[in-house]
C-alpha cells in the first residue's frame, strides 16, 4: 500500500453535492460511508477512479462518489466496465451492482467478467430482494418467499453468489456485511490489492422490503454463533472457539461443535490454493437463512489479467512493426495493386 500521506485525500473528498436518495435506514448508507472512508487508502487520484453501476437502489451509488462515474442500464455494468478497464488499464474501475442487477438480468456479464479476470472490483449489494421496483423476489431470495410477484411463494432455488462465482473461474471472491464497517473495509482492501476481477458480496439490509434478512449475523446475541470469519492461515474456529469447520471422514467440509484445541480435523483457511474446490466447499456451509456464513476472503489467487494481456498484445504488435502512416498506407495498398497513368 502506498503511503496515504502522498495525496492526503480524506473521506469527504469522495462525497458529492448530490443528495443521497435511499430510504432512511437503508444498508446502502453504511456501505457508502465505508467505501468513502476506504478510498483515501488507495491513494489513487480521484480522476483515475471510476464507479460504474447498473440499475437498482444500490446502483445509485456512483452519483454519491466524487470520482468519474456511470449509472448505466440494468445488468450491463460488468460489460461496460470491461470495455473501460481493458481500454484503460491505468484506471481503477469499480462496479456497483445489486442481486437482481448482477445475478438476474446481468448474470451472463458477471460470469464472463469473472472468467476473463478483467481488472474490476465488483461490489454486489445483496439484499435478497428487488428494492427499486418495490419488492419482488430476487435470484438470492430463499425458496417460498412471499412477495408481490409470488403471493403463494417463490419456487426457484436461489443462487449462492460465491458458489456461482467460483464455478465461473473467479480469482477473487469475498463476502462481508453492510453493518460491519471494519470487516467491510478489510475485504475492500483485499479486493483492491487483488489484480484481476474481484467479486465482493455485501449482505445489505433493505429495511423496506426485506428487513432483517441478515439479522442473525448482526444481532450481538447470535452473530458469533453463525459468522465464520476467514483469515488466511488461521484455523476456521468461531462461536466460543469450540465451533469449527472440519474435514469429515470422506474429506467433505462440515461444522463440528466442541472441538478440542488440538483437533487435527480443524481446517486452516487457505485463500490461495489454486484449486477452487476448497473455497467452493466453504461456500456450501451456510444455510439460506445465512446461518454458518463464512465471512472474509474465500479465494484470492493471482492469474494474468485480461486488460494487461490485451495491452501486451497491442504493444507487442506495435513493437514488431509500428503502426505509423507509412504502415497504414502500405496496408491500404495491399499486395496486388496496379497503376493507371
Amino acid at each position, binding site marked *: 500500500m502506498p503511503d496515504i500521506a502522498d495525496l492526503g485525500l480524506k473521506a469527504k473528498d469522495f462525497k*458529492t453535492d*448530490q443528495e443521497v436518495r435511499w430510504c432512511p435506514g437503508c444498508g446502502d448508507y453504511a456501505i457508502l460511508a465505508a467505501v468513502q472512508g476506504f478510498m483515501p487508502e488507495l491513494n489513487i*487520484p*480521484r*480522476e*483515475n*477512479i*471510476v464507479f*460504474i453501476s447498473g*440499475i437498482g437502489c444500490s446502483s445509485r451509488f*456512483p*452519483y454519491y*462518489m466524487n*470520482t*468519474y*462515474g*456511470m*449509472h*448505466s*442500464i440494468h445488468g*450491463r455494468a460488468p*460489460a*461496460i*466496465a*470491461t*470495455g*473501460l*478497464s*481493458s*481500454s*484503460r488499464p*491505468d*484506471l481503477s474501475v469499480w462496479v456497483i451492482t445489486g442481486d437482481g442487477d448482477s445475478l438476474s438480468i446481468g448474470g*451472463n*456479464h458477471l460470469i*464472463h467478467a469473472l472468467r476473463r479476470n478483467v481488472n474490476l472490483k465488483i461490489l454486489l449489494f445483496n439484499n435478497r430482494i428487488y428494492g427499486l421496483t418495490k419488492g419482488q423476489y430476487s435470484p438470492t431470495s430463499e425458496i417460498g418467499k412471499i412477495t408481490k410477484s409470488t403471493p403463494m411463494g417463490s419456487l426457484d432455488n436461489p443462487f449462492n453468489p460465491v458458489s456461482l462465482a467460483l464455478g465461473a473461474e473467479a480469482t477473487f471472491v469475498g463476502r462481508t456485511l453492510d453493518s460491519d464497517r471494519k470487516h467491510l473495509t478489510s475485504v475492500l482492501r483485499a479486493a483492491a490489492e487483488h489484480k484481476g476481477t474481484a467479486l465482493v458480496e455485501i449482505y445489505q439490509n433493505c429495511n423496506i422490503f426485506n428487513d432483517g434478512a441478515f439479522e442473525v449475523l448482526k444481532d450481538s446475541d447470535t452473530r458469533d454463533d453463525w459468522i465464520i470469519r476467514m483469515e488466511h492461515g488461521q484455523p476456521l474456529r468461531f462461536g466460543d472457539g469450540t465451533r469449527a469447520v472440519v474435514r469429515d471422514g470422506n474429506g467433505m467440509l462440515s461444522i463440528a461443535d466442541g472441538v478440542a484445541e488440538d483437533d487435527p480435523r480443524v481446517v486452516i483457511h487457505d485463500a490461495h490454493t489454486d484449486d477452487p474446490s476448497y473455497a467452493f466447499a466453504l461456500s456450501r456451509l451456510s444455510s439460506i437463512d445465512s446461518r454458518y456464513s463464512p465471512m472474509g476472503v474465500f479465494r484470492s489467487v493471482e492469474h494474468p489479467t485480461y486488460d494487461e494481456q*490485451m495491452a501486451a*498484445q*497491442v504493444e*507487442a*504488435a*506495435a513493437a*514488431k*512493426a*509500428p*503502426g505509423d*502512416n507509412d*504502415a*497504414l*498506407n502500405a*496496408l*491500404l*495498398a*495491399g499486395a*496486388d*495493386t*496496379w*497503376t*493507371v*497513368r
Partner: protein
Amino acid sequence: MSKNVEQLDQVVIRIAGDSGDGMQLTGDRFTQETAMFGNDLATFPNFPAEIRAPQGTLAGVSSFQVHFADHDILTPGDRPDVLVAMNPAALKANLGDLPKGATLIVDTHDFTDRALARIGWTSNPLEDGTLDSFHVHSLELTKMTLDALADTELSRKDAGRSKNMFALGLLCWMYSRPTEGTVEFVQKKFAANPAIANANITAFKAGYHFGETTESFAVQYEVKPSVQKPGTYRNISGNLALAYGLIAAAKRSGLPMYLGAYPITPASDILHELSKHKRFGIRTFQAEDEIAGIGASLGAAFGGALAVTTSSGPGIALKGETIGLAVSLELPLVICDIQRGGPSTGLPTKTEQSDLLQAMYGRNGEAPVPIIAAQSPGDCFDAAIEAARIALTYRTPVFLLSDGYIANGSEPWLVPSVEELPDLTTQFATEPNGPDGVFWPYLRDPQTLARPWAVPGTPGLEHRVGGIEKADKTGNISYDPDNHDFMVRTRQAKVDRIADTLPPLVVDDPSGGAPANGGVAGGGGTARVLVLGWGSTYGPIGAACRQIRSAGAAIAQLHLRHINPFPNDLGAILARYDKVVIPEMNLGQLATLIRAKYLVDAVSVTQVRGLPFKADELAEMLQTVIQQGVIEHA
C-alpha cells in the same frame, strides 16, 4: 496451334460447384488477375448458410460471379456469358440465369445417374437436348486434373481437389489473364505444404495449356484495360474497406480504437480483419453477446477511445437498449449493421436492406441516431470515415449501414493516401467550464450542440453520467417536466444540425436541354423522373439508368449517403420532379421516411429476394413508371 483472338468490351463469368470445391477462392483469384490487368470489375459471391452443405445437392451449390470490362461498370452483371459448372447440381442451380447463346463449361465427371437422380434429373442434360441453346463444352476436368497429377504422391482424393485450379487455368487462358499472381499466391498460401502447392500450380498450368492446345476452344478473348482516373488501384471487398476506413479514422483522429463485437454473418469479417491490426493501437474484444459488445464499446468511449461495434440485424436488435443509453450519455460510438435477410434469423448469407427503420426507431423513447449508408464495396471506406466524423464531432452513436452484397462483393478501388484523408482530430475537455471551477458535462457547444468529452484521468473534471434524464448543463438527475421536454428536443436538434455540414447533393442526369425547373448540381437535365436510392442498390440503379438512357429516355438518379438527418437540399430536389421512384430491397423503408418528411408521393419499387436487383429487371420497372407514371405500391 495458333488461335484467333477476339476483342470483347465486357464479359460476365460465373463459376459454380460444391461449397467444398473452392469456388470462392477460384473466383477471387480470377478477380485479382483481372484487376491487376486493369479491367473495371464487380463481383458477386453467393454461398449457402451451411459450412459444408451436402455435396452434390442444390442446397450445397456455391458460386462466384465476376463482371469485367474495358469501361467502367456498376454491377456483377445480371446473366453470365459464361458458366463453369463443376457438377450437375451447379449446372441445374444456375441454368435458369443463362441467356441463350451463353457458353457452358461443364465438368462431366459427376454426371452419373445417381448424382443426376439426387437432384431430380431423370435424364442427362448433356445429352437430352436441355442445353441446345448454349455453347456447351463438356470436359473431363476432374480426370484431366488427376492425369496431370498422376506422378505426384497425392491421393486421388487430394489430387481431385485441384480441379478448380485446372478450371481457373483454362479461364485465364480463355480471357488472356496474367498468371504470375496466382502462382505466387498459391506458393504463399500452401507454403507449409509444398506438395499441395505444386499440385495446384501444376493443375493451374495444365488447365492453361489445355486451353492453348485443345481444339474445342477455337478463340481466345481479350478485354482491354478500362480507362480509369489515374492513380494506384487495388481490388477490395466492402467489409475490408469498412475495416480499413475505421483504422484510418482512428489514425486521423489520433484516438485508440476499441471494437466490441460478437460474431455474426455477414459482419464477422470486420472483427477478423481489425483483430489483425493491433499495431495501430486497435483493441478487439470478442464479447459474450451483442449487448456486451456494444456495452464494452460504450465503456471504452467513456474512456476516450474511438468506439465501434459491428453486427447484423438480429444482433442490432439486441443492442437497442444500449444504443438508447449511448444517446442519453451522448458519447461517440460507431454502430455497423451489415444487413442480411430477415426477419429473425432469416437468410443469414443473403443480402437485404430491411434494417433501415430499425436503425431509425429501434429503441425506447425519442432516441435519434444519425444514419449513413455505404453504396459500394470501395465506398465502405469513405462511409466509415464519415460515420466516425459525425460520431466524434457530435458525441453521438452513429449507424453505418452496409449489407451482405457489398460486404462480400468487390470492385477496383483507388487507394487513397492517409495524409489526404479528413482530419478528425478530437479535443477532450481539459478545463472546468462552469461557475467557480465546476465542470458541467452537459454544457453544449453552441454550434454543434455537442457536449464536452471529459475522459477519466483528467483532474478536476470528475463527473457522473447516466441513463436517467438529466438537467441541462449540469447533467444531474432531473425529473423536471420542462427540462425533459427541452432535453428531448435538444437531442433531436443536435442530430438535425448535422445536415448543416453536409455538401450539396449531386443529381446524375446527363440528359441535355433545359434543366428541370432550374435544376442544379448535376440535375441539369430534362428528366421528369428521379430514381432515389440508398446503400447497395447504387450499382443496379446506376446500371438500370444507363440502360434507360441508352434506350433514349431521360432519367435522373440521386443516391443518399445520409439518411438521418436528410440533407437540407433534398426536399427542393424532390420537388423538381414529376415522379420519384425508390427501389429498395425491402418493403419500402426509405420511401416511408421520404413520404413522411416531404409528403412526396414517392413510388416504391421493391424486391426482397435476398439478391441484388438485376439491372435489366429494374430498368423495366423504371420504364413502366416513366410511361404509366405509376406502379402499384409494394
